[in-house]
């Protein structure tokens, strides 16, 4: 499928406000937080959750006039779905990549080391280097599911709240797993595998259901 830059631009414009808010918040937090970042950091987890919800909500306002306008411009449903997913990736990357680069380059380490004379830096830089991947994994699990939620809600079918409850369940399970540090290797592998199943299922189902979307 060919990427349509103009469509992508229109879609990105919808998400731009939240990106402009999330980007500085995320970067400033990563730059200035004094504790060592870990995959269990609750504030970053909350940030990823709220950012994901906002992206999904802004992409899926299927009752809005702008939404209806876009869906009557001659794009196929698959094209629209594909560009929405692409736009989501772009929106995440615009926020996630600078945050990750601050950790990796290592801007954060330099600031913490030289400005704050932190005991942890530059020592902990190597440990923090893997943390952005967990943030990305958070986006990867939540966003396909949240996109599925709005697509499911726009179907001529009942029981849409079930998908919402399901996404709440996912968030609760992630939060529960984050409360414990020492997951065994086999359990971690199981989590990765089942997460992959959930992501793939949400994406495939989202794409299929998107074809029957009811634009109001």
């Amino acid at each position, binding site marked *: 499928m060919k990427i349509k830059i103009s469509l992508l631009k229109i879609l990105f414009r919808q998400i731009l406000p939240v990106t402009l808010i999330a980007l500085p918040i995320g970067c400033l937090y990563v730059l200035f937080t004094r504790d060592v970042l870990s995959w269990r950091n609750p504030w970053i987890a909350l940030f990823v959750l709220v950012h994901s*919800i*906002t992206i999904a*909500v802004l992409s899926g*306002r299927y009752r809005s006039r702008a939404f209806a306008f876009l869906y009557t411009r001659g794009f196929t449903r698959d094209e629209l779905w594909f560009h929405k997913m692409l736009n989501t990736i772009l929106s995440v990357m615009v926020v996630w990549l600078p945050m990750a680069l601050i950790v990796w380059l290592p801007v954060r380490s330099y600031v913490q080391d030289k400005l704050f*004379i*932190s*005991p*942890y830096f530059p*020592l*902990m830089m*190597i*440990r923090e280097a893997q943390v952005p991947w967990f943030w990305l994994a958070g986006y990867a699990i939540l966003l396909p*599911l949240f996109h*599925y*939620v*709005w697509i*499911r*809600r726009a*179907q*001529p*079918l*009942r*029981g*849409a*709240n*079930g*998908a*919402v*409850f*399901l*996404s*709440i*369940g*996912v*968030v*609760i*399970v992630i*939060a*529960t*797993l984050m409360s*414990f540090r*020492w*997951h*065994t*290797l086999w*359990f971690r592998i*199981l*989590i990765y595998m*089942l*997460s992959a*199943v*959930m992501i793939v*299922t*949400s994406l*495939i*189902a989202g794409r*299929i*259901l998107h074809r029957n979307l009811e634009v109001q």
Partner: protein
Amino acid sequence: MNIQLILGFIPLVLLLLVFLVAGFISRRRNQPASAPKGNKVTRITETTILFSLGLIAFIYFGCFNSGLLLHLGRLRPAFTTTHIIIAGIVIVFLLLAALLSWIGRASWAVVLTIVVLFGYSTIIKQAAFNGPGYFMTLLAPENSWEPMVNYTFEVNDGLKGAEIWINGVFLGKTPFKMTGREFHKKVPFLTEPPQGFSEENKNRPKGDWFRMNMLVLEENNDRSGAGIYYLSKYEDYYAKLRLGDEWGSNGIGSSGGGGVQYQRDYEVSLRAHFSSTDKLEKAKQERFENLLQKARLADYQVESQWIETVDTYGENGWRDILRLATDEKEFSDILDKWAQWKYDISKNMSQEQASKIFRQICKQANLESHAGKAIELIYDKLDLEDLVKKYERVIKNKTRQNTPDSISVMRHAIELWDKKLNSEDANIPNIIEQRISPALLVWREDIEGSAALGGADIERYLQRGFQRENRVSGLELQPKNREYTLGMHLNKSLYHLAFMDSPAARQFRQKHKQQVMELTELIVGSNFNNSRKPPEFLFFDLDRGEKSLAYQYWPSYSVHVESSFPPWWYEKLKKRWTYLARLGSLATEDMYIHCWKIAEFRPELMGGYLLQALQALHALPQDKKIPITKEIIKELQGIADQKRQKLGLDKNARHYFTEDECVDTAREHLIQAGDKESLQLLLSKHGQGQNNFAIRRIKRFFQNENMPDYSLIEILAQHENPALRVLALEAIRRYPTAQNRAILEELLNDPDEQVRTAAQQVASELKAIENMPLEDLVSEPKGS
């Protein structure tokens, strides 16, 4: 009441609110009632997600979050069944939820899943001290949650066929095991000792019975508070042992062990004398002694066959020789040879061979005896880069569950390398300090381990930590800045920097002397350190002379010793002298004497205690040890003379006061320290006749485990009294070193016949040992 269930719903409610505000959840029905409840795609998707989610949460709660599904084999069968039934019910509900989702009721399915899983978590949650939770006590059969107790009974370190009787009940013949419930069913608890138990001597009763400490479970039932939990406690039981027809005498017994949550393994170890086994044990000990004598007679140059023979004595043999090596350094070389033989280590071995041995020891994962020594012999042949890389990998990947057993072996090799590199040049950062020390800090947050290896990273980490938080102790310190030790919350950075032995840490201690001294005060004065052991770091900068921490802290330390335990005067004196001995040349003789003067010496406690205190002076150089002891002798003699004067006795009268005995003890100490003058004094005063006072005293030295000083034997061998020359032969017989054998050669031509005969006897005894075939000296000879 467990509030986890309620707490678990708080995030759910919050998220529902967020989703409601975000418009994800509609308050009104979107679709007409006639619309279908989802289609095939939605059903498959939602059921798949729900199933995945439920599975992760179920495994997490059931196996890790206080769940016991991975430990069912360790529980009592009834408790296992309860756990399985509850898990089975949960699975049924989860399947029901999946079914609900499949028919388009995903909302209800999610609510059901969450309620069931949080309910499950609440039910199986353990109470305090890993006891069963409140709900489990309602659901499981009474007492099924009691930990499984397994007793292993052992007599005389593995003696087979010994009968064990406890509280009058015959339990079985060794070796045997028994569960706690079997034991308590069979053995009654006695409030009074059984008939025939002797209280005459509690430690070594004369009768067959002996009292023993038995570890048993104690149930604490506090259902309104901490719940039910189990602790281990000791109870008095009365045991007797029989081997064949003989009851064991002088029995003793104890038990120990521990375990996890629902399983305790206790080992009951009993000992008693049996004439039959005693004879065997004695013969074995004699064989071992003869083996050692052969080594001495060979000037410690032992052949591989000797090593093969000593190897039959295993760990005990190793430990015995290690103990001997403190006095006879040559035995240390023998231990090296033993380890070399055990692991086929050669002096010019290649790196590859060393790596092979290292891998073998890593596989064994046991650093006891030979293995630890073997690592010491080969570590510098190992590829350091490779070793560091492997250890780094282990540190990075290590989690609580998959710590490789070989980690201690690797750590030992790393520490040896670090020591070697530091001894070459402590100022050049080495690879261990650059890579292992930071890795321990980064991946394991092991500050202690990192600080032990040292390096710029850990030093900077701690110094910056101290810059951020410089208070010495207290609960007001943030948890991440605290080090809980000796019952106190100390500043973590300060604590570890103080204990580090590096140039930077040394500078730190100088710069922040006040805080370091404050920390020292807390450590020394802690109720958990009632022996008042001084921290090691005090002695790291003795080269700074009177500015050193240890020197400056001495007055405070001396004051603290007053409140130390045990409270006896000689223990306090010993502590003070030990501290001064560690000060080395900074401690003057006056300081030692001052300690003696403030020691509240109580002569009625006899001289034996004084000898214990005087042992603290062993570490001192001769030129200090001897004058100090002589000064003390002078003091004691002064007290005794004053007493004599009061009673109107002659100064030289042998009216024996306890002070006089203390003087003799102190002289004994001097003689043992190799003071020829004291020995000559003893011999000139009391060395006349066959069984004189001096002989009795000196015999006492020889009965000690330690090898007597060569000069002492030499003086005795040259003394004019033949009885003393015979005494020298006794020492030579026990320690036939090359030097002592030279004295023996001279005594074989002694003008006195009694001495000559004794010398010939010793010589022939030694010759017989020398000619003993090694195969007769193995631990368990064939046919024994």
